[in-house]
C-alpha cells in the first residue's frame, strides 16, 4: 500500500514535470543543444 501511494505521488510529480517542461518550451531548448556539435 505504502509503495502504491509513493508510486502514485512520484508518477503525478513526473507527469506534471513533463507537461510543465513541454509548456515551457524545453523540447526546443533541448533540440538547440542536442542537434548541434
Amino acid at each position, binding site marked *: 500500500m505504502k*509503495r*502504491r501511494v*509513493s*508510486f502514485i505521488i*512520484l*508518477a503525478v*510529480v*513526473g*507527469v*506534471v*514535470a*513533463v*507537461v*510543465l*517542461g*513541454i509548456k*515551457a518550451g*524545453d*523540447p*526546443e*531548448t*533541448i*533540440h538547440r*543543444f*542536442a*542537434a*548541434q*556539435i
Partner: protein
Amino acid sequence: MTNARFDVSTRARAWVFVAIAVASAIATLLLKFLAGFDWGVLYYGLASMLGLGLFLALFLGRPTTHNRWLSFIVISLTGAIAAAFVGIGQGLPLGRVLLFGWVPFTLIMLGAVVFVRRRVAPYRVVQITSAVLLNAYIAAYAQNKILYQGFFKYVPEPILNCYGGPLAVFACPIGSTQQMVGMKFLPWLPLGVLIVVGAVVGRAACAWLCPFGMWQDLLYKVKVGAKAGNKRWTSIAVIAVITALIGSVLVLLLKVQPLRVFLYAWLPFNLLALAVAIKGKLELPGRMWLGGSLAAVGLGAVVWLKFEVGYAVAAGFIAMVLLGLTGRWFAAGFAAVAGFLLGWLGNPAFHVGPLSGLPLGIGLAVAALILVFALDVAAKASLPSNFLKFGVLLLVAGVASYFTAEPWFCKLCPQGTFGAGIPLVLWDPVNALRGLVGWLYWVKIGILLAFIVAAIAIKRPFCRVICPIGAIYSVFNKGSLMHLTFEESTCIRCGICRKVCPMDIDPQQSQNQLECIRCNECVSNCPKSCLKFKV
C-alpha cells in the same frame, strides 16, 4: 551452462522475433513520418533489425552448431540485401554503405556465433536492441551528415547516450539538464522523464536500455586473474594488439606524435590491464573516506585558484573517480599522478619542450598528496563508495554547470568520449573537428581508458560510482511500482543470485537497494524461486 532450465522454448523464441519485427516496423514508420527519414536508409535499418530478430530467435537458448551458422548466414544475407537497397535504390556509394553498415554488423554477429556458447540473458537481448535503436542514425555515414537533427532530438531518452554522437537519435537527459541548468532554467522535461520511468520501474532502464551498461557488462566477461589460467595472457595480448591498432589510427589521422601515444596512452593503459590480468576480478571498496572525497574537491579548488575552471573540474572529477574505484591509499597515488600529468601536459609551456611543464606537474602532485593525507587524518568519517555518484550529480553536473554555463559532466563523460568524441574526430566529414582537439580531449580519452580497465576488473564501475542518471534513478528503487521480493524461508543460501548480479549486490540482504537495476537475472537463476518481481 548446459542446464536444461536455461533452454528457451520455440514459442518464446518466436515471440522474440515477432516483438523485434513489430518494434522495428513501428520505429520505421515513426522515423519516416515524424522525423522525415529517407526510405532507403529505413529499409536498411528495418532489414538489419529483422535479421537481428531472426538471428536471436534461432540462437537464443539453443546454441547448436546448425542454428548458429544458419542464423549467421541469414543475418549476413539480409544485411547485404539492405545494403543493396540503400546503395542502388538511393544512389549512395555502395562501398561506404557496406563498409560502415553491413561489415561491422555482420562481424558482430559472427563474433556472437563463434564466441557465445551459452544462454543469452533476456535483458542482454533488449540491451543490444536498445543500443542499436538509440544509435540508429546510419544516415550519418551513408549520407555524409554529421548529426541527426530531426524530431527525436527534441525528446530526452531515459538513459545515458550522448546526443553529440553521429549515430545518436535522441537527446541525453543529463546533457540536456546541464545545458538548461547553465541557462538558469529548471530542467522540467528531462527530470520529468526520469521521474516517470523511475517511479514505474526504478533503475531498470540501467539494465535493459543503457548502451554504456552493455559495454561494461561485456568488458567484465574478459578473462583475467589466476582462475582464468592461460586465457588471461590471451586477453592481455588481444588488448595490447587492439590498443596498438587504435594508437596507430590516432597517429595516422590526428598526426599525434607516436612517442606521445605510446608513453601517455598505450603504455599506462596496457600496464593497468596487465595488473588486472595478474590480480584478477576485484570488488569495489565498500567505504570511501570522507577526507578523500574532500581532497578531491580540494584538489579541484586549488587548481581552479591557480589556473582555470576546466582544469579544476577535470582534476576534481578524476580524483573522485579514483577514490570511488580504488579507495584512499591508491587514490592518493593516482591523484598525485593525475595532478602531475595535468600540470605537465596541460601547461602551454609543454609545447615548447617536453620537460618545460615539469615543475608545475610536480607542484600539483605534491599538493594532491598533501590534501589527501591531511584531510584523511582530519576527517575519519566514511561514506559508502556508491554515494560518490550523488557528488558527481550535484558538484560536476549541477554546481559546476550552473556557475560556468558549461556541461561539465558531458565534457568528461566516458560514454560521450566513446559515442561522440572519438567517432566525430576520427571521421570528421566537415574537416573542422580535428583542429579543435585540445588538452581536455586527451583527459577524456584517459578517463575512458581508466573505465575500460576498471570494467574488466569490476562489475559496472561507472554505473555504481559515477553515473548521475543512475544516481537519480537509484533513489526511486525504494518506492517504484515494480519491486523485488524475497522469500527467506525457501532460500538455501546457494549464492547464485549474488554471482549472476551485474551490479555485484546481494539480493538476499536487501532487495530494493540503490544499486538494483532490475535485470531479472537473480530471479531467473534462483533454483528455489525465492526472488520475484512484483507490481
